[in-house]
């Protein structure tokens, strides 16, 4: 694929927590419009990997490139880059003192300098799209987990991101709320959003992703098209992992 279509690129990324080698020589390229799902047992480093992409975690060595540019290390440049990459967290992390509408408009107003009325109009459209427009004037604590997570997605979308990172977006949700969030994510994928998704939702991975990356012990063990990976995993680690989640 052409050079300019590489949105996210990790080259020989290494990271330690004290003695623990949590990321080992990670190489990963995400192209425009691609949906890459990171799966693996807990502690495999998949969340850490996801969080290094917008420098919520630092790396010890290697390179991270966003659209061919090295990831800035601090200051305005870093903030600017982060504004272009959306992030959705496991625990939603909505701003507790702001209304739903204010949560979505804060970034556009403060970072993109969008006029308030324009930001609010866009925010309402986004809230409509994720199905929580009626809650616009409530505060986060008044919403269910599923609703909060959809607001968090709208908050990211309001920044018109080039790519979005999802760090276990459904892991903190009650089972009946998982689908409402996944549906929004499926829609995004179908619209061509570039996405990196850390998840345990195998149906989502199989149905939506272009590529599955399987991690274990800080390494990328294998990657491939979803059907191939789920039906014919090459490595023993992947086979064991798939067996364990299928409950065999």
């Amino acid at each position: 694929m052409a050079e300019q279509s590489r949105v996210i690129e990790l080259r020989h990324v290494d990271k330690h927590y004290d003695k623990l080698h949590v990321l080992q020589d990670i190489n990963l390229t995400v192209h425009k419009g691609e949906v890459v799902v990171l799966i693996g047992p807990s502690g495999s480093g998949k969340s850490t990997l996801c969080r290094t992409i917008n420098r919520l975690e630092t790396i010890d060595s290697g390179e991270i490139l966003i659209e061919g540019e090295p990831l800035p290390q601090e200051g305005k440049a870093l903030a600017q880059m982060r504004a272009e990459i959306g992030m959705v967290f496991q625990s939603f992390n909505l701003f507790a003192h702001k209304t739903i509408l204010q949560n979505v408009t804060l970034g556009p107003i403060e970072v993109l300098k969008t006029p308030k009325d324009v930001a609010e109009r866009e925010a309402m459209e986004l809230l409509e799209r994720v199905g929580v427009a009626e809650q616009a004037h409530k505060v986060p604590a008044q919403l269910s987990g599923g609703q909060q997570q959809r607001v968090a997605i709208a908050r990211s979308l309001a920044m018109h991101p080039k790519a979005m990172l999802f760090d276990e977006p459904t892991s903190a949700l009650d089972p009946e709320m998982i689908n409402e969030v996944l549906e929004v994510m499926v829609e995004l994928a179908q619209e061509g959003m570039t996405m990196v998704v850390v998840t345990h939702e195998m149906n989502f991975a199989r149905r939506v992703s272009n590529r599955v990356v399987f991690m274990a012990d800080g390494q990328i063990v294998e990657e491939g098209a979803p059907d191939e990976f789920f039906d014919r995993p090459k490595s023993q680690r992947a086979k064991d992992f798939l067996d364990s989640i299928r409950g065999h």
Partner: protein
Amino acid sequence: MDFAQIIEQYGENYVKAIFETMSMTAICFALAMIIAVFITVMRVSPIKPLRLVGDVYVQVFRNIPGVALLIVIAYALPNLKVVLPWKACVEVTVVLLASAFGSENFMTGINAIGVGQIEAARSIGLTFGKTMSKIVIPQALRSAVLPMTNLLIATMLTTALGSQVPMSPQELTGLVSYITTRSTGAGIVPFIISAVCYAGTAVILGVVGNYIDKRVRVLR
């Protein structure tokens, strides 16, 4: 002596004393808040010596008894060629104590926010300054309303330290000891008057603080 006699003889003193107590409370609390913000900034700064100074400041002044601090300031400092007027000694004491507790209240407010919201702020591109001014400080202030109300009440009670130095005019506690030693048979009336002034103000402040807290509290 009954209520009418006390008021007749000392009514003016009481008016002055109420003014002293309330104005000292207001001034000390305002100064304490300013210093508390300053100390809190030091304590959350990434610069280790400033953090240490802030932490030590808070530990010293939240653990020292008010009287001990007042005595050091009023009676020990003059030997070090630092001489303050009596009232200033009391005010400095109250401000030092209240600012330490004020900083603790701010820290508690900051701690309640949680790492997640700060990471979320970063990830939508807010700079450090914006993260502080839009996310951290507003929430810390809102959750500080109730503790700060209680601190304001505590500040008022601490100004009673004024009774331990020859202040003139006296505040509400000093006046009681003045009246009681001066007029034999003054009885408990002087106490009741001062106590009602203190407790009444405390209850009113509590109601107001509670009302504000209900309106601005951050639901979690």
